[in-house]
């Protein structure tokens, strides 16, 4: 790991102040010389691998005093960005009203990492693409823009089939973000000129021709919280992976339904493990809306979710798997007693 200076923020203004110097640089957020440190489960790992090389770490853990809320208010769920994954997963209000949120967190990482990782850092966790994480590969457009993509013709079994470009097929690895994008969450962002709100769906950027730019966050900005509108008691997360626990998704689906007399009034479907960003499957939602729910409908929705999928040499299985995961999640949600 390269040397860095460690600073501890004492409150929000001091954190914003310490990070403000990063805002003057023209680097993408992930390359900024000053990085905030929350749970550290991604950042310290990538610093050990020499993938991230900040010169200054600003420890923002003291901000947990202000930014850890888990609160139902006026029919919305408010989550502070410094709330730990385990605290939100174990919260009874979240489990009752937003099962899909609790499940995306329970099924992610390990208990130790969930005790450490904060929600804000969790949604910003970086891809597990082996070519990205191993600096001995020179050709990675995320690490070295313009150098090419070793995964395109490499071992790409875990890579994305949706939202890819000819410059990057790295999979977005998280789970919680799928619940947020499915439920139309807003993200609150705090910087030196105050706070702004953004639809969560606009936080992550598809790779396109600049995969090094992963989000619309600017250097010096921090995620301060999330707002999830409405209640979604009929919601689930289904995650298929290589082992039963403590593994990233090969394909996953976050699903929320409102069903009235057997007819789907509202449907939300998001996909994980198969796309370059948290992925909203609006084609699947369109198939479901207004229709009487049955297994055939669930399968049609699964087909629709992957109609634009493009596989590489080793990951075509994800399309078949993903369709079934969507159908399974819809069946589970429809069968819930709420």
């Amino acid at each position, binding site marked *: 790991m390269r040397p*860095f200076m*460690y600073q501890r923020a004492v409150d929000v203004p001091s954190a914003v102040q310490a990070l403000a110097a990063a805002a003057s640089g023209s680097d993408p957020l992930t390359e900024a010389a000053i990085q905030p440190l929350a749970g550290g489960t991604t950042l310290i790992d990538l610093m050990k691998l020499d993938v991230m090389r900040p010169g200054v770490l600003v420890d923002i853990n003291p901000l947990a005093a202000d930014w850890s809320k888990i609160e139902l208010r006026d029919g919305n769920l408010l989550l502070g960005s410094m709330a730990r994954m385990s605290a939100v997963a174990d919260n009874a209000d979240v489990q009752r009203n937003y099962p899909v949120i609790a499940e995306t967190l329970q099924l992610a990482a390990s208990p130790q990492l969930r005790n450490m990782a904060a929600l804000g850092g969790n949604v910003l966790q970086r891809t597990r693409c082996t070519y990205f994480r191993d600096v001995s590969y020179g050709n990675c457009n995320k690490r070295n823009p313009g150098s090419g993509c070793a995964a395109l013709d490499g071992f790409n079994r875990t890579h994305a089939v949706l939202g890819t470009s000819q410059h990057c097929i790295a999979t977005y690895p998280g789970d919680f973000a799928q619940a947020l994008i499915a439920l139309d969450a807003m993200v609150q962002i705090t910087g030196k000129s105050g706070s702004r709100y953004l639809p969560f769906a606009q936080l992550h950027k598809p790779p396109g021709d600049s995969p090094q730019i992963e989000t619309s966050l600017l250097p010096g900005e921090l995620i301060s919280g999330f707002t999830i509108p409405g209640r979604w008691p009929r919601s689930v997360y289904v995650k298929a992976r290589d082992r039963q626990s403590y593994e990233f998704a090969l394909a996953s689906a976050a699903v929320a339904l409102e069903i009235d007399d057997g007819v789907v009034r509202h449907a939300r479907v998001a996909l994980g493990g198969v796309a370059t960003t948290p992925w909203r499957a609006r084609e699947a939602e369109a198939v479901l809306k207004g229709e009487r729910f049955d297994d055939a409908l669930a399968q049609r929705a699964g087909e629709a979710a992957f109609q634009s999928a493009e596989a590489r040499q080793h990951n075509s299985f994800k399309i078949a798997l993903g369709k079934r995961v969507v159908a399974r999640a819809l069946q589970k949600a429809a069968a819930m007693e709420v």
Partner: protein
Amino acid sequence: MTDSSDSRPPSGFNRRTFIAGAAGAAVVPLAAKGATPDRGTSGRDSSLPVDVTLLVNGESKALKIDSRTTLLDALREHIGLNGSKKGCDHGQCGACTVLIDGRRVVSCLTLALAAEGQQILTIEGLAKGNELHPMQQAFIEQDAFQCGYCTPGQIMSAVGCVKEGHASSDDDIREYMSGNICRCAAYPNIVAAVKQAAPSISSDQQKG
């Protein structure tokens, strides 16, 4: 009680201190990308050691360490507590699990500097004198290890698992112990040990 980082384990010159010394001598300062003084607020050399005081097993330990030192390396290389093990050093195996303010974490992804002011509990702090913690006793009675390398992490994780209320069934234990890998695959006996110890740990917690 305050120890200095210069103190060596009681055995003096041994394999571990020899290796640590040899590795230390080979360290060459690296250039830090962007670590120019104008970008930090303190403006001093980021490779200089910094002072930190850690609260480990109820004792205060004053150290002078490189800012890159993880809590795991601080425990093992600077304080001389070698119970916490380095497996993967990337948060994937759980061998380095310790409790910080009662919550289990992986010490290999925790910076020592960031752990200042918090209560750190390692495997060495679990027993009360010669009386083993119920989880340690259960691991022995259930034969819950073979080579033993992952065991300190397993035991610390198991204590956290029970205290978090996630040891209500075998499935629950398996899921909430999944952050600890056992290469010998002693898993069935680990589940049995957690189950055996769980009632006494819960009552410990109720007593406060």
